[in-house]
C-alpha cells in the first residue's frame, strides 16, 4: 500500500508543489526559531541578572536582523535563492545560540543549580 502511495506521490509532487509547501513550512519554522531563541536569550538574561550580569543588546540585534530576513523566503524565486536565504538566516541564529552557550552556559547552569536548591528549601 505504502509502495503505491509513494509511486503516486512521485508522479504528482512536482517542483512547484514542493516550493509552495517549502515556503509555507519555512514561515512556520522560522517563527518558531525566532521565538525559541528570543525566549532562550530572555531566560539567560533573567538568570544572569541574579548574579548582577547582563546580556549585551547586540545579540538581540542579530536576532532582529535574522527575523527581518525571514520574509525574503517568501520572495525567493528559485530553490537555490531560497536555500541561500535560509542558510544566511540559520547561520546567524545558530552562531548566536552557540556563542551564548559557550559564553554563558556554565554561569546559567550554576544559577539554575542554586535556583533549584533554593526552591527545594522553600518547598514544604
Amino acid at each position, binding site marked *: 500500500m505504502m509502495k503505491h502511495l509513494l509511486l503516486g506521490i*512521485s508522479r504528482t*509532487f512536482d517542483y512547484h508543489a514542493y516550493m509552495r509547501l517549502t515556503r509555507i513550512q519555512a514561515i512556520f519554522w522560522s517563527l518558531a526559531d525566532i521565538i525559541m531563541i528570543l*525566549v532562550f536569550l530572555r*531566560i539567560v538574561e533573567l*538568570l544572569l541578572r541574579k548574579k548582577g550580569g547582563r546580556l549585551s543588546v547586540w545579540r538581540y540585534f542579530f536576532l532582529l536582523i535574522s527575523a527581518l530576513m525571514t520574509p525574503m523566503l517568501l520572495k525567493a524565486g528559485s530553490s537555490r535563492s531560497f536555500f541561500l536565504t535560509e542558510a544566511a538566516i540559520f547561520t546567524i541564529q545558530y552562531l548566536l545560540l*552557540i556563542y551564548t*552557550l559557550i559564553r554563558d552556559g556554565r554561569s546559567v*547552569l550554576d544559577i539554575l543549580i542554586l*535556583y*533549584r536548591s533554593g526552591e527545594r528549601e522553600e518547598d514544604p
Partner: protein
Amino acid sequence: MLDELFRSIIDFVPSLTQVMGLSWLFAEGFCLVYVRWIYLRLESSPGRSNRFFLLFCVMIFISLVGISFFIAFLSHQQLGLTGGKRVVLYLNSTFWRFLCAAWVVVEGLILWYIIRITALFPGHGASPVLSATVILSLSGFLMFYLYFEYLFGLFSFQDVLGLSKLVNLSRFFIKISGFMWIFYEWAVAIKGLQFLRFLRASARERI
C-alpha cells in the same frame, strides 16, 4: 601535475548544500549535548557521564564529514559513466535525507531533555502527554524513514522510476521531515515560554 593534484582535491569537496547541512547538524548537536549536560547536572546523577555521549556524537559527526567527502569523490567519478547520473542522484539524495532525519532525531531529543529539565522545577509536571508524543512520533518517523529508504533503493536500482520522479519522491520525504521540525521547534518554544514565565513569577515572589 599541479593541475591534476588540484583537480583531485576539488573532487573531494562536498557541495554547498552538504556543507551547510553538516554545519546545521553540528549546531543542533552542540545544543543537544548542552541540554543533556544541564539535565544531568541539575538531576545530580554523578554516575551518568556526558563524556561518552559527547564522544559518540563527535564520532558520528566526523564519520558524516568523511562520508560527505567520499560521496563528493564518488559523484565526480560516476558522472561520466553509463547510469552514473542515477548513482550520483541516489548517493546525494540519500545523504541529504539522512541529514534531514538526523535533524528530526536531534530536535526530538532536545525537546525530550527540555521536558525533563523543566520537570525538575516545582510547579512543572513531567508533561506525560508531550513526552509520549515525542517517543511515539520519533519512533514512527524512524520506522517511516527506514521503510522509505528501502523503497527508494528499490525504485532507484530496479529502474522503476525515472530521475525526475525519484527527485520528487526525495523532496516529499524532506517535506515530511519539515513537519516534524516545525512540531518539535514549536514545542521547544512553548516549553521555553512556560519556563520563562515560571522564572519571572518566582523572581517576583522572592522580592
